[in-house]
């Protein structure tokens, strides 16, 4: 019974090629590439650096929300409040900074803290009472929506100081101007992709979504883990609020009302299962880009925006169908 030679041929990590082909992101990635190819062939303007820069700018807010949404969906939860929490965060940042009662950086910190607080409240209610995430975040959606309108007094807030919109500024890369916000969003995706796949925390997130009871029996501290995930998501919504302000230049109380569903769309398109425990942030990045590329490409083709929404809806149903069928096959 020597352990020096084991009967397992695959102690080494699977090869990159095999991993790419079998990865759950392979399908979404293929869809993205096909869409890009299609729009490159049908429109002149699609395949330009400027257009790609624009696509990333258009998706960075929903993309950042979708990172938080991915974390929560991986635990078999869902967050309907992300859009309105972000809207409230953006009003907090904008109003504080515009009034000048606090320095801009403090206003930003307060905005992140408020959004983190919403996440914490969601997490506590889901974990400690416990309540279904759908109900908790549906309630929080309304709370944040109302607070946004009360606090902003229905006014759009403009004349924001420079630091608050700094992420909207651009730097040249070759012939293309890229916003710092785009870069920041991509960095966030990479950070969470790393954390999910290469740290204990990431393993625990997946284990929690797979089987909460098994995770607990295996000694994971599921309660702080769950609350931490919701709080982290909240802080990400705060970052999305900052990105939103930097992109529009104002604090708009009407913002973000459909972003909760858009973020769920991106997560699902990226191959993350709504049943929890499987999926990835990189998949979500692809999902976000699929939505962005479709909207942008169809726009360039002159398709009315209501048809873009129609196509996005069909794509989501298609993605969930593929997920469900592949899960059945895995059994």
């Amino acid at each position, binding site marked *: 019974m020597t352990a020096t030679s*084991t009967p397992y041929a695959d102690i080494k990590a699977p090869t990159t090629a095999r991993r790419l082909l079998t990865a759950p992101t392979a399908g979404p990635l293929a869809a993205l590439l096909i869409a890009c190819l299609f729009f490159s062939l049908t429109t002149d303007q699609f395949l330009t650096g400027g257009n790609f820069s624009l696509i990333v700018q258009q998706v960075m807010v929903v993309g950042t929300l979708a990172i938080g949404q991915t974390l929560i969906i991986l635990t078999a939860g869902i967050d309907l409040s992300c859009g309105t929490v972000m809207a409230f965060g953006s009003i907090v940042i904008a109003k504080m900074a515009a009034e000048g009662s606090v320095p801009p950086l403090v206003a930003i910190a307060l905005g992140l803290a408020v959004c983190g607080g919403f996440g914490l409240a969601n997490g506590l209610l889901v974990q400690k009472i416990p309540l279904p995430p759908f109900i908790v975040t549906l309630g929080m959606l309304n709370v944040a929506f109302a607070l946004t309108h009360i606090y902003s007094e229905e006014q759009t807030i403009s004349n924001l100081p420079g630091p608050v919109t700094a992420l909207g500024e651009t730097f040249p890369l070759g012939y293309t101007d890229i916003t710092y916000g785009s870069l920041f969003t991509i960095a966030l995706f990479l950070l969470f992709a790393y954390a999910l796949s290469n740290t204990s925390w990431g393993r625990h997130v997946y284990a929690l979504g797979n089987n909460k009871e098994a995770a607990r029996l295996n000694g994971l501290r599921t309660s702080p883990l769950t609350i931490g995930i919701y709080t982290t998501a909240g802080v990400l919504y705060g970052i999305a609020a900052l990105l939103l302000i930097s992109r529009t230049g104002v604090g708009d109380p009407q913002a973000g009302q459909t972003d909760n569903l858009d973020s769920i769309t991106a997560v699902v398109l990226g191959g993350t299962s709504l049943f929890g425990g499987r999926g990835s942030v990189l998949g979500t990045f692809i999902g976000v880009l699929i939505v962005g590329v479709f909207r942008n490409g169809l726009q360039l083709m002159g398709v009315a925006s209501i048809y873009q929404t129609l196509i996005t809806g069909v794509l989501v149903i298609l993605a969930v169908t593929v997920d469900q069928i592949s899960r059945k096959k895995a059994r």
Partner: protein
Amino acid sequence: MTATAPSPVLQARGLVKRYGHVTAIDGADFDLLPGEVLAVIGDNGAGKTSLIKALTGALVPDAGEIRLNGEPIQFSGPQSARSHGIETVYQDLAVAASMDIASNMFLGRELRRPGLLGNAFRMLDKKRMRQEAAEHMADLKIGLRSLTQAVETLSGGQRQAVAVARAVAWARSVVVMDEPTAALGVKESGQVLDLIRRVRDKGMPVVLISHNMPHVFEIADRIHVHRLGRRAAVIKPSDYSMAEVVAIMTGALTVDDAGGTVVADSDAAKAAGVQAN
């Protein structure tokens, strides 16, 4: 019991646990000897689950003493029992289905890369975890096609094998198995029983909670019969028939100090088809 009997690895004396008016554990004793498979059996509601929970830290008894390797010990929770080398395998295949075998084995005990990558970037050492998982699996002669496949692609027996291998890998004193074959078919149950034997042969004592009398008789070195919240008897399977053990479990027979059986309830004993010897 003779003077030369080995001292128990895990021992309990006079454990009591009450929930309101219900007494789940009523002065129970327990002894697990080194290197044995001790089956714990009892009718539904006899309190064997509560006893096992007390021994694995899942509940804190109101009274009584637990000793591990002779030292008195108090568990504040499952984590505390685990940190003392007591690992538990649960009946409902407590694994994370979409994760691979090595990830499951190291769940909650992940290894990090040495140096800066591990300390500053918290990077997992996936290669070492796969290697060590492979060694643990090979050690118990668990043959699987692949270690990087998700646990959900395994059969129920193979999943349970992963759970057992996980427990054995981390246990230093005792492995407790709570109905490990309850969710499995005949062939898979046989595989898990073989596995339990190999665990015992490595010198690791096993507490096996089971309803399945043939399994208990096949594998147990001794049988702890639990009844009405306390230990009714400890017997060797070779000394009694299955019908007699069932009769002890239901209270139709009692065991005297010399190991003989006494009919406590003649009607019940007759119904069970046993008589005193």
